[in-house]
């Protein structure tokens, strides 16, 4: 017998799951990504490198800037371009804005209704209007940063190889420093709210992240440091999904907020670090549901870090200046932490044109782990709870991964 869920709601993109039952036991769970294929790598082949980041941004709206930055980093590495610290800091600021926009969307509008037993944030707002408004204020702030650095709230084209189309001005950075400080209280409340979340989705044992907090030169995990994705991680196509599945040394693994906190807590800002320490024991247990709490702690980190970056640039002063980029040959990988986990863009460029391109998104990295988490929940609840409760819990488990299904459906064969 197979129980099929409806298409997941309050997640980005189209997907569902089926639970395979044999002899009254849960044998298997399959996560079926039904979102159609998107062919992004094929689209970039033969293109001029300069135009590619703008196209790659369109892979995903929630994390378009992560795609732009990963694409730009891969191009710069391939063409031997180094940018100054001010450019790196502004890119980081953009990624921080994206983290705020994405995490607040997920926590307040997609997950919070579950905590209070509502079908959505609009109905939740009838009783908890302040909470929803706080989430919207955070999301709007994250988007203001994306607009400033990326050029638009969604799919901006301002992040370019070598620098920016338009550089932010002093007053704009001052406003960010001020608003980040003002919103910190809200984010701290989010940590209190989400520290009440239950334990579900099973325990993850393997975690992968980039070596820097939001960008990196290579990957790290809880069993080894500094490796490239192609050395350890294998992707395989599935007959029941438009997204491929990745295994790390043959095993499922977790990327995202929880993995980042567990692997890189020493990089956190002071308040975020304190909140991590307070919750360390629970987070270290590895429950998938605690990814929600980890995201709330990262909201605090992001607001503190946004203020720090703005202040550093304002104190030091900077002149808008782009590094010239010449068309040439080379190969490069851009590693970025998208809000929901490790994102890889890998290109080979010949004469300024893209010759090979490979992209692996966080949801693809998490795909196998997601099936593992659903299997754990299904085994736990099947026969012990009514079917509608089982299905609701499976949906909540999927939601804890904050999947970005649109991103996950466009891989090219490596």
């Amino acid at each position, binding site marked *: 017998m197979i129980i099929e869920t409806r298409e997941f709601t309050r*997640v980005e993109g189209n997907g569902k799951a089926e639970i395979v039952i044999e002899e009254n036991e849960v044998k298997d769970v399959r996560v079926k990504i039904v979102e159609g294929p998107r*062919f992004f*790598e*094929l689209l970039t082949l033969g293109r001029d490198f300069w135009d590619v980041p703008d196209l790659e941004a369109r892979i995903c709206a929630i994390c378009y800037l992560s795609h732009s930055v990963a694409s730009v980093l891969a191009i710069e590495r391939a063409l031997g371009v180094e940018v100054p610290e001010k450019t790196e800091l502004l890119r980081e600021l953009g990624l921080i804005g994206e983290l705020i926009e994405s995490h607040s969307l997920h926590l307040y509008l997609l997950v919070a209704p579950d905590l209070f037993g509502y079908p959505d944030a609009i109905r939740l707002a009838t009783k908890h209007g302040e909470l929803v408004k706080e989430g919207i204020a955070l999301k*709007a702030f994250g988007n203001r940063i994306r607009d400033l650095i990326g*050029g638009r709230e*969604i799919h901006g084209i301002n992040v370019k190889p070598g620098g920016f189309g338009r550089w932010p001005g002093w007053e704009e950075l001052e406003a960010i420093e001020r608003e980040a400080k003002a919103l910190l209280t809200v984010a701290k409340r989010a940590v209190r709210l989400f520290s009440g979340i239950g334990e579900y989705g099973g325990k993850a044992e393997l975690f992968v992240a980039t070596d820097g907090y939001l960008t990196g030169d290579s990957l790290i995990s809880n069993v080894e440091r500094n490796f490239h994705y192609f050395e350890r991680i294998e992707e395989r196509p599935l007959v*029941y999904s438009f997204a491929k599945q990745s295994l790390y040394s043959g095993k499922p693994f977790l990327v995202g907020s929880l993995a980042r906190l567990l692997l890189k807590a020493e990089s956190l800002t002071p308040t975020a670090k304190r909140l991590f320490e307070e919750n360390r024991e629970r987070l270290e247990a590895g429950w998938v549901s605690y990814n929600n709490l980890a995201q709330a702690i990262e909201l605090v980190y992001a607001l503190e870090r946004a203020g720090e970056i703005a202040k550093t640039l304002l104190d030091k002063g900077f002149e808008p200046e782009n590094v010239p980029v010449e068309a040439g040959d080379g190969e490069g990988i851009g590693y970025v932490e998208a809000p929901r986990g490790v994102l890889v863009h890998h290109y080979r460029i010949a004469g300024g044109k893209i010759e090979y391109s490979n992209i692996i998104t966080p949801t693809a990295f998490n795909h196998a782990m997601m099936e593992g988490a659903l299997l754990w929940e299904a085994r736990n609840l099947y026969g012990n709870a009514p079917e509608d409760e089982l299905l609701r819990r499976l949906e909540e488990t999927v939601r804890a991964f904050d999947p970005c299904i*649109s*991103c996950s459906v466009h891989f090219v064969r490596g």
Partner: protein
Amino acid sequence: MKLGVFELTDCGGCALNFLFLYERLFDVLEFYEIEEFHMATSLEGKHFDVGLVTGTVSSHRDLEVLREARNRSDYLIALGTCATHGCLQASVELPLKEKLKAVYGDEGNPMRALDPKPVVEYVTVDLAIPGCPYDKNELFQALIDIAKGIEPVRPDYPVCLECKLNEYECVLVKKGLPCLGPITLGGCNAACPRSGLGCIGCRGPLPGEVNPAGEFEVLKGLGYDEEYIMRKFKTFARWGP
């Protein structure tokens, strides 16, 4: 009035952009009840006064969702360039079989994929709002107009005009950048020239009197090769000079 939002295959941005109305979302909710919108609610509706549909038809699943959305909506809006013109994912010019093989590695099609096409090629829509993403103010105004019984106004000017109104420096003339502003439908408030970069044409061609052949010659005159220009023209809306 009852509102439904339906997502086919896309980046999620057109559904998300609706939520980015922030406080004005509550103004929309003065007129509309959101009955179905899987990114935002777990509810499912039956019949809709207005349906918004985003994305391309890229699988049989998408086609079924689209037909349901059309049948159950009195007024259907194709929202965003995927739905109106096909956008990036429809611009890869290879037979479907070859595309699937390049991505998934075998010649089968177990998930019943279709060659990505815009919504408007399968059903009649009452309004098409392009943009990658569309301008959220345009959607806001359209929804309010429909609620009041007024037919929404469609922009009929190029991006170039908005650029001039904002007094941005002309990136085509002054910097020689490949800018599609003169032949692209306006409504984005010249988002790309605002960043000092050329318009990438994400809102598709300006209908009516427009001169893509002239644009083609201008870009050729600036030293861009024909293949490069053609790809630029075709990226979002598969148009030719």
